[in-house]
């Protein structure tokens, strides 16, 4: 029973990180209909920047803010410089551009910081809570992860539902022509969408780099598995739906935690595949997508 509880708790914590990556992918998908394969590399770069700031200043929180700010800038620059020229062309072209960007960023990361993995500090204690004599597999740092991802999701929900800028972003995403006619700066909304997505990604990077039980030492290729899990979570939830991304992330985190806890970690990729295929067979556009499913 304690094992089940432990696996559930650690599943929630990793699921929260998946949810943050999934949110990043969903925001970009909603804004520009692009699956951003460069997301993993982008959050690698921002996490390295955070590490550099932490090492220079000694303050975790300055590094944290640096990661989010550099994510904001990186996302906006990538959209303006690389994605804007290929928008409106064949639908796969932006995907190939993001693949190229992924390769380029991993190489740049390796050039600057080398390929040796480095450890990343955690802001809070990594010792599990003690409840009645047993140590739970859930730490104050996990609490921080879950709370900050929840805060991110709530913040995005408020932004999209309750502010004029969020309304403009939704309009630009769903009916760009009509939105443009009504005076929405559609291009600017797309840039903002990418920037926000990169902030969510940067957050996920900082969190996962320090997150036990399996901290990911920081190296140029370290975040590829996170990107795949985030993508699977986003597809599970339905790529159009930010709440779906959060729930998809939690479901995937829990399921993979149970599989790796009870059956061993070699089965994890296969389990992710099985979960995705089963869900998509029942609901071809994910669990929470607004669009109608296609009937054959």
């Amino acid at each position: 029973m304690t094992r089940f509880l432990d696996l559930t708790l650690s599943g929630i914590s990793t699921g929260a990180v998946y949810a943050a990556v999934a949110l990043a992918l969903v925001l970009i998908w909603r804004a520009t209909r692009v699956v951003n394969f460069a997301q993993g590399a982008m959050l690698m770069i921002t996490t390295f920047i955070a590490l550099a700031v932490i090492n220079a200043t000694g303050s975790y929180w300055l590094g944290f803010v640096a990661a989010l700010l550099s994510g904001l800038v990186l996302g906006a620059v990538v959209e303006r410089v690389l994605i804007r020229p290929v928008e409106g062309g064949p639908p796969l072209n932006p995907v190939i551009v993001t693949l190229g960007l992924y390769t380029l960023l991993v190489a740049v990361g390796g050039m600057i910081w080398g390929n040796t993995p480095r450890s990343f500090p955690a802001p809070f204690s990594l010792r599990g809570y003690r409840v009645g004599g047993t140590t739970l597999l859930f730490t104050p740092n996990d609490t921080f992860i879950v709370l900050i991802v929840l805060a991110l999701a709530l913040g995005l929900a408020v932004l999209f539902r309750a502010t004029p800028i969020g309304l403009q972003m939704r309009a630009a995403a769903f009916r760009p022509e009509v939105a443009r006619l009504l005076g929405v700066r559609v291009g600017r909304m797309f840039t903002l969408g990418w920037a926000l997505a990169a902030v969510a990604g940067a957050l996920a990077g900082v969190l996962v780099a320090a997150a036990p039980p399996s901290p990911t030492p920081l190296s140029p290729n370290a975040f590829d598995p996170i990107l795949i899990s985030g993508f699977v979570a986003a597809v599970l939830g339905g790529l159009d739906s930010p709440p779906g991304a959060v729930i998809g992330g939690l479901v995937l985190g829990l399921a993979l935690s149970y599989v790796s806890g009870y059956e061993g970690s070699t089965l994890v990729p296969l389990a992710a595949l099985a979960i995705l295929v089963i869900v998509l067979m029942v609901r071809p556009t994910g669990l929470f997508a607004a669009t109608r499913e296609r009937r054959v």
Partner: protein
Amino acid sequence: MTSTDPALREPAPGRATSAVRRAVGENTLLRSLVLVIVVGVALLLLSDVVTTYRDLQLSYGAYYFCALAGLTMLAGTSGQISLGHGALMAVGAYTVAKLRNTGWPLVPELAAAVVVTLIVGIPMGAAASRLRGPYLAGATLALAVGLPALADKFPSFFGGENGLSVNPSTPPASLGANFPLERWEAWIACAGALIVLFALYNLMHSGLGRSMRAVRDDEIAAGLAGLRVGRMQTLAFAISAACAGLGGGVFTLVYQSAAPGSFQLQLSLYLLAGVVIGGLGSLVGAVWGAALLVFLPNWSTDLANSFSLSTNVSHNLPLAIYGVVLIAVMLVWPSGIQGGVRALSRSRSRRLRGAGARSSAQT
């Protein structure tokens, strides 16, 4: 899309051409046979004059072409994308490795690789026909990650991390004792590529190919016209999978091993990049893509080594160049290299015509 591929077409029969040329021009089967024979003879001559290292590169290009041609047929004809073709290559590769170690001869084991991948491709295609766009990408991406994990799960059957190694296929004695192994492998690989070229060329120019394109362009209209939409898409996926399987089988013969490390996600992503950069939906584009996948890593490594740089920079420079090329091609030629070549030749012929019109106006 591909039916108007000028580079694959025989030249239009002029006034002076014989009835034979006209028959070849109109009959897809004859045209593809001529195409395969011409390309085959060219490859045969090429493999004889180049060094063994170039022969090896030729076989790399040939197995890439098998997978890329299948993928480009899927994307161009059926309108589906797949991020899982690297995993399908692994299916073909492991089939050949297992059969080769039990003593099967060359041709049946490659045929078995095609059949096994076709069978694996059918349920996957049936699943894929329900999905579109990013959902299909997600499902096939999970396939690319999940399938190689099977090798780790059943190490006694699939050989675990190290994979399975096989004996090379030795050239027949009739070719002489000194016939290089690399050249023989290049022949096998090119034969596989030619079979794929022949099969897909005929498929894409047949009624079946037309039906698939109809499904791609408008599913509802195609359904109304009596086409089985789901079945068409399943079939396209399975055929495309079989091509990738043949490519994987050839891979095992060339590398003399099948290991999970060769079929990671990167392979699937590079295959997708290869078809899009070559030109989606065009078999000539698949040739461009294969050439790119073979030569670009070499060129960028050579280029990186020609500067004297610190190890961190020089180790990562090839990767950086690769990424820059992917981005640059997409920004410069949105419809891929083949689309760029077509646009160039069109504008040149227009300029020539324009010059001719001007000079005739002056006289």
